[in-house]
């Protein structure tokens, strides 16, 4: 039987191959934050407070467009709704853990930490799965924060004329294609994107939330038809 410490180290090791994807994403978040006019402390602080890159980029884009603060918050929460799925999947492994120990690691739950842990758990569940998850989530979060600080320092010297805001739609596209798994997913993206173009004129960027809801509904409808 492995000790908790050994599983913690195993989790950290298990996360090593995914770290190269964490670094550039954190750099991009910080550089983009500087690009829309935040100072380096705010740029790095954002990554430390939120720990959720895709939603940070969305928040920054809306910030640069002068969206209403409520629309910014709702957009962040909608993008992060996926964490409820991770939460439900991880729950059985964390149920015996005391809150003082598990809450910090729940706070830093990421796509990558979830992915690394679940791949391991479905192959061979470690003796202390919670500690394996802690190790993976911990090293990913550490890498994330260090890269965000480096990005904030680098971003401060990149001139605005380079048009780095264009990095937002580009990074969203990579995340979007990674999220599309089947035909109903394609329909959700096409309807969500198409409606966002049509509804762009609505006040407070409300069109974004409305369009995304219609896209989700379209995906569910298509999935229902496939199964029927």
């Amino acid at each position: 039987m492995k000790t908790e410490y050994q599983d913690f180290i195993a989790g950290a090791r298990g996360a090593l191959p995914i770290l190269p994807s964490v670094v550039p994403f954190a750099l991009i978040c910080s550089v983009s934050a500087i690009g829309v006019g935040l100072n380096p402390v705010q740029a790095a602080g954002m990554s430390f407070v939120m720990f959720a890159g895709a939603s940070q980029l969305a928040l920054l884009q809306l910030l640069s467009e002068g969206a209403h603060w409520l629309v910014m918050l709702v957009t962040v929460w909608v993008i992060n709704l996926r964490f409820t799925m991770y939460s439900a999947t991880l729950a059985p492994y964390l149920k015996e853990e005391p809150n003082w120990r598990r809450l910090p690691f729940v706070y830093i739950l990421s796509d990558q930490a979830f992915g690394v842990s679940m791949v391991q758990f479905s192959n061979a569940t470690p003796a202390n799965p919670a500690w394996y998850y802690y190790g993976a989530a911990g090293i990913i979060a550490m890498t994330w924060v260090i890269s965000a600080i480096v990005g904030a320092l680098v971003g401060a010297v990149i001139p605005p004329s380079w048009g780095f805001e264009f990095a937002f739609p580009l990074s969203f596209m990579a995340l979007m294609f990674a999220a599309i798994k089947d035909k109903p997913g394609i329909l959700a993206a096409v309807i969500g994107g198409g409606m966002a173009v049509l509804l762009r004129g609505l006040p407070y960027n409300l069109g974004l939330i409305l369009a995304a809801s219609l896209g989700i509904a379209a995906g569910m409808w298509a999935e229902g038809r496939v199964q029927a």
Partner: protein
Amino acid sequence: MSELSIWLLFVGAAIGTFALRFSFIYLFGKFEIPPLLQRALRFVPASVLAALVFPALLYPNGIFDFSLHNIHLLAGIGGGIVAWKTKNVLWTLIVGMGLFWVLPLIF
């Protein structure tokens, strides 16, 4: 935005996100995800991200532009092909930003 409102925005975003992360870990054994919500969640990322991308490419500088003069659209399509093939943020950025800087020199 003022210094204070920026931080309030981050903290508000973070509190909501923490609630989502903790949700079913907290509720374990008390409450299951309703099947309808579970089906909806699957389509959230694709739909929201597309809703952010399409207008950003078609409304450069706030004005609708569906033409070969729209560098955002052209570089976005180039980056989009890379995004589709690789699903990798870094490669998409390298190709997309590269096109975004080079295309104006050609057109």
